[in-house]
């Protein structure tokens, strides 16, 4: 979550769900919370019952809109314009929380003289390289202030910066490494506390958002100026010392080619309004499903290690010293990176990790480029990948461009699928839709598929880390049936067997595997490893053999271990803190004894900001954490997200390092300057400020700049991933995808269940009566949707809840809604919505633009068999798109022998 990470220092929701009940106004934007997070939605209901205003901003009128006070139907993909308009409204009318902004944000910081804004460069920032479609971010930096601690190894840092410019390093992406710890900056900036200097962030901001007038918002988003005014009034009237507004988003923001910048825009607005770190305020990032937060904390991402430590890069990090060089001497908690990394290495390799061998730093595999999910699919098709594990993932249905994904899976040597059901990604070789078209045939596919039945969440023990960073221990309720086993069981025994096979090996490359600490106690008939022992290892252990209670205890000398520094404390006092279950009535508002939240059980992040610079609550009504002069410490309703005894008037002495370099008025403790970032001098690859670009596939011309779409967007070109040209008459309608309450993501957990399947029994699309009339579609009948990828069919629901947007110039934008749960397996079936979509990615996150694409829609069912290929090809020809014909198993016939490794 680089949007939040670059703004505040940590890539997690700033507040907790229950805290929404304290909000005076809640804006849900980029989320269909009532449908996709119905249980958490009770706190929105609670807030509404207490009199809060609920606003839902979404292209579709959903079950969330149904109980909001106001639904704002903006055009798909225009949230930056809307939020940018709000920022301008707040700045123009001086409705920002001035004391907060001056003290806690980087509004007063001076930006480098070299920085050129999009306003003066027609939609581009300074530093753009059109050949590589990448920015050199040097000119975006702060105007360097006092050279306090430019680093202890200036030479090294400089060479590191050079290397960061190399395309391989850029591609491996630094954007995502700010989950816990903001981007590193060379030094603290010059400041002008009056905010008047033209190069202050505040003045830069004013100029940057000057174009985002209510009229422009109206034109771009397709909403009435009065509706914009209403939202602006409610939000600003409920954002001050006494009142707070919360913003809620989910994948409706992240799944865009400018997704990280959507979140940045919201961060800027919420900082200006003084809503971060305060009860009832904040930005609530709702995660897509169970433990997604957990799977970025202890990551399943190619470029991260646990606790958001970046994955070492082959060209950059040949030693631990080089790896931690960027953090050495830095202000903020990232200054202790070496201790976190050393403890991680000790947790993994134990006694084999010594000071002499650089704590086994060399054992960690290094990345050498982009190995993100979709790039890897393309690599599979090109024969560069031999094996693949799919664990709780159904790419054939859940990833955009299912056809391309199936081609990838068809070009492996082996594939392991661990799932509850025989999902489409395990049966594609036999039953996938490409058999009908002749593009795939079992006899030509070399992939050997191993299906391993998995235990469900009630059949195994362990933790979930949910949307608000709380780890909750799950006890095993029943034994898994038959051969079904937990993932922990699978990986533990897989590792055990591999180690046994290799135990006599003398090959140095087997050392990392053989030296692993792999000694978890097992129990029961099935020899299940003890999940609590794993959690304790993640927590970390001190020199006395006792569990650590805080990451501040971690040392860089190898005397401590810990598998994920931000989780340190979850096993404090040798107690599984995640298993705590104190009833709500018996504890305070923050629920501090239910489970355990990272970091250090702080439920609300940056909560130092709930008090004024002197440490007093901004108001009685919004009191949360404050300075107790008598006791000499921070106290309140939550664990302070601040050093407990650091006085509010603390000023760092010359040469201070890490947390000691942050002042008593710096609430954003993971940031190098301790401030919330209105302007991000580092951390994002597509700009220090958000700018409205149209989606990659849009039917509308960018009204703000001549640059149509995000110039840094990441593409994966190939015959299997053609792009619909923008503003094409052949693909005249916008499409968005989403989920329904009744089904679970790619359907593996719901399409096989009768009680869920009967509630949403078939794949359908939602269209407005106007579009239905335009294209002759009838409610309850079939329609065919076509893109440059393929064509799919769906039943039609004609509904007033979808509405066409009429823009100023008279252009009418029709929008189609398309839930994505279906495919051919299970009780409830249909074509797969994701087959229609292409893959274009946000360059910060490698997240696909699922939420906006284009297509055509016509009545009736789609052609069958090879006729389908010709049907889609005819659309490509008309739209001037290159052919999408592929060779055997999706390989381009021309490049068929270009691959290496895998057999064809």
């Amino acid at each position, binding site marked *: 979550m680089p949007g939040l990470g670059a703004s505040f220092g940590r890539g997690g929701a700033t507040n907790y769900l229950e805290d929404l009940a304290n909000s005076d106004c809640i804006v849900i934007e980029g989320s269909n919370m*009532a*449908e996709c997070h*119905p249980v958490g939605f*009770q706190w929105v*209901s609670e807030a509404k*019952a207490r009199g809060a205003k609920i606003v839902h901003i979404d292209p579709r*009128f959903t*079950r*969330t*809109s*149904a*109980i909001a*006070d*106001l*639904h704002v*139907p903006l055009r798909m993909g225009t949230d930056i314009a809307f939020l940018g308009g709000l920022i301008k*409204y707040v700045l123009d*009318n001086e*409705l920002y929380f001035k004391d907060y902004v001056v003290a806690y944000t980087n509004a007063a910081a001076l930006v480098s003289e070299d920085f050129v804004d999009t306003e003066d460069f027609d939609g581009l920032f300074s530093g753009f390289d059109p050949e590589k479609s990448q920015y050199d971010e040097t000119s975006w930096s702060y105007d360097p202030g006092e050279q306090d601690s430019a680093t202890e190894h200036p030479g090294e840092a400089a060479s590191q910066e050079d290397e960061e410019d190399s395309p391989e390093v850029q591609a491996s992406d630094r954007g995502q490494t700010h989950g816990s710890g903001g981007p590193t900056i060379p030094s603290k900036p010059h400041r002008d506390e009056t905010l008047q200097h033209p190069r202050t962030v505040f003045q830069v901001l004013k100029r940057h958002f000057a174009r985002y007038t209510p*009229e422009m918002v*109206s034109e771009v988003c*397709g*909403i*009435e100026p*009065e*509706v914009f*005014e209403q939202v*602006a*009034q409610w939000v600003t009237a409920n954002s001050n010392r006494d009142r707070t507004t919360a913003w809620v988003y989910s994948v409706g923001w992240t799944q865009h080619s400018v997704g990280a910048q959507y979140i940045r825009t919201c961060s800027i607005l919420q900082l200006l309004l003084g809503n971060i770190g305060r009860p009832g305020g904040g930005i609530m990032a709702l995660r897509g499903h169970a433990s997604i937060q957990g799977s970025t904390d202890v990551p399943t991402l190619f470029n991260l290690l646990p606790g958001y430590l970046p994955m070492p890069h082959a060209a950059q990090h040949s030693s631990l010293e080089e790896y931690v060089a960027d953090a050495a001497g830095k202000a903020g908690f990232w200054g202790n990176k070496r201790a976190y990394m050393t403890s991680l290495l000790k947790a993994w390799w134990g006694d084999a990790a010594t000071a002499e061998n650089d704590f086994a730093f060399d054992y960690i595999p290094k990345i050498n480029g982009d190995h993100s999910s979709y790039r890897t699919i393309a690599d599979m098709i090109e024969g560069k990948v031999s094996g693949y594990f799919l664990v709780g993932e159904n790419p054939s249905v859940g990833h955009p461009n299912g056809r391309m994904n199936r081609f990838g899976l068809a070009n492996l040597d082996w594939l392991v699928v661990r799932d509850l059901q025989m999902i489409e990604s395990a049966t594609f070789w036999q039953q996938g839709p490409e058999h009908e078209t002749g593009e795939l045939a079992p006899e030509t596919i070399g992939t050997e598929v191993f299906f391993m039945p998995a235990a469900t969440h009630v059949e195994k023990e362990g933790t979930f880390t949910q949307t608000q960073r709380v780890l909750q221990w799950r006890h095993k309720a029943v034994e898994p049936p038959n051969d079904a086993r937990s993932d922990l069981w699978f990986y533990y025994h897989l590792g055990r067997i591999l180690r046994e096979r290799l135990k006599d090996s003398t090959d140095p490359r087997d050392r990392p595997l053989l030296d692993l600490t792999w000694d978890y106690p097992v129990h029961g008939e099935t020899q299940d490893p003890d999940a609590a022992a794993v959690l304790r290892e993640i927590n970390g252990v001190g020199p006395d053999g006792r569990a650590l209670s805080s990451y501040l205890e971690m040392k860089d000398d190898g005397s401590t271990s810990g598998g994920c520094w931000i989780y340190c404390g979850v096993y404090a006092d040798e107690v599984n803190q995640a298993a705590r279950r104190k009833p709500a009535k018996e504890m305070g508002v923050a629920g501090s004894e239910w489970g355990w939240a990272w970091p250090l059980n702080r439920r609300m992040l940056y909560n130092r900001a709930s008090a004024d610079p002197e440490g007093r609550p901004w108001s009685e009504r919004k009191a949360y954490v404050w300075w107790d002069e008598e006791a000499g410490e921070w106290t309140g309703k939550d664990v302070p997200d601040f050093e407990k005894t650091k006085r509010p008037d603390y000023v760092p002495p010359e040469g201070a390092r890490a947390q000691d370099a942050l002042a008593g008025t710096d609430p954003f403790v993971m940031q190098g300057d301790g401030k919330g970032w209105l302007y991000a001098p580092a951390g994002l690859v597509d700009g220090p400020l958000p700018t409205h670009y149209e989606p990659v596939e849009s039917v509308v011309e960018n009204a703000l700049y001549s640059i149509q779409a995000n110039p840094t967007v990441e593409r994966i070109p190939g015959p299997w991933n053609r792009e619909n040209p923008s503003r094409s008459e052949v693909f005249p309608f916008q499409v968005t995808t989403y989920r*329904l*309450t*009744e089904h679970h993501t790619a359907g593996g957990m719901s399409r096989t269940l*009768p*009680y*869920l*399947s*009967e*509630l*949403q*029994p*078939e794949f*359908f699309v939602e269209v407005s*009566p*106007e579009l*239905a*009339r335009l294209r002759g579609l*009838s*409610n*309850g009948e079939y329609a065919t949707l076509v893109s440059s990828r393929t064509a799919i069919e769906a*039943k039609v*629901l*004609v*509904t*007033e*809840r979808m*509405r*066409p947007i*009429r823009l100023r110039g*008279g252009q*009418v934008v029709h929008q189609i809604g398309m839930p994505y749960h279906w495919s051919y397996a299970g009780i409830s079936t249909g074509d797969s919505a994701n087959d229609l979509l292409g893959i274009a990615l946000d360059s910060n996150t490698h997240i696909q633009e699922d939420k906006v694409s284009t297509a055509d829609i016509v009545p009736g069912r789609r052609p069958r068999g090879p006729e389908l290929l010709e049907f889609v090809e005819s659309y490509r020809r008309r739209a001037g798109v290159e052919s999408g014909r592929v060779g055997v198993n999706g390989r381009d016939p021309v490049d068929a022998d270009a691959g290496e490794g895998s057999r064809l």
Partner: protein
Amino acid sequence: MTSISSVSAAFTGRDRGNRLYGPVPDVTEQSGYAEEHPKRVGFFTDTSVCIGCKACEVACKEWNTLPMDDSHGVKDALGLSGMSYDNTGQLGANSWRHVAFIEQSRAVDLPMPTFGRPGDDRHDHGTSVAGSGDLNSTATAQASVLNAEALTEFDPQTGQTGADKQVRWLMSSDVCKHCTHAGCLDVCPTGALFRTEFGTVVVQGDICNGCGYCVAACPYGVIDQRKDDGRVFKCTMCYDRLTDGLMPACATACPTQSIQFGDLDELQERADARLATLKAQGVETARLYGRDEDDGVGGDGAFFLLLDEPEVYGLPPDPIVTTRDLPAMWRAAGKAALMMVGVAATAILGSRRGAR
């Protein structure tokens, strides 16, 4: 535990008025339970906070192991109904909770009160996005899932304003009403239907003989026969859970407290307060349904807060227990019988007289 009455309150002898109609202060006691019986329980379904998640439907089916069915109640069948997000269709033998989805829309001329920016006297509303012409006309809109014919005046709290038109999406979880005067129970010839000690109405599957009288007797069309089986089924308010001190499955699963379970008198108080709050917020169309003990069924054990006319939700506006007129009918039948006897007697006597 007292003996369970398997007959209608009208026939226990405890109801001296032998009433089949009107308010009954203690329906449980009247049904033959001893005075220390549990309080009457019920559901208050507040549709103004329903988010249509259908957790109630799923929890009900899970707990009661009901079969899958389609929107016509056909067992083990699937199919898109085309009626908004409602693929359950109706209450029936296989669906004891049913969430209705009602889409309403109307065109508006002045979408919003206008707001000027502070220090700005702007009160125009700019160019209408809706413009004019065919796009603006909902009257000519193609047949859609819009399934509420009667569009009442929307309320400020519940009418979401876009630009050119207001859209409202009502959701309501329907269930057996557990009437004070339960027609189904009154007509059941086998005693399969009975009033529980909690004041609820339950069918005993092992006694039901499938006669189907109750199906016609229910003023709400709730109780329903399973075709392949012949017996009737409906909500039991989770009688088995109640006897174990648990809440019904649906109320337990509801994330927004739209379905509230509890003692009926307490729920009624809560509902009155909620209605007053909504009225104070300007939600003029809010109303309680099934709350009034003077209605045609003596008030419901499961009652509702609605945001529109009951018909909009598929509920009868003025339900009357089908056995209300039974005494009158018996009296009429008695009179008729007497008259028949009289006529016959007269005829016989007359004929004798004639024969003379």
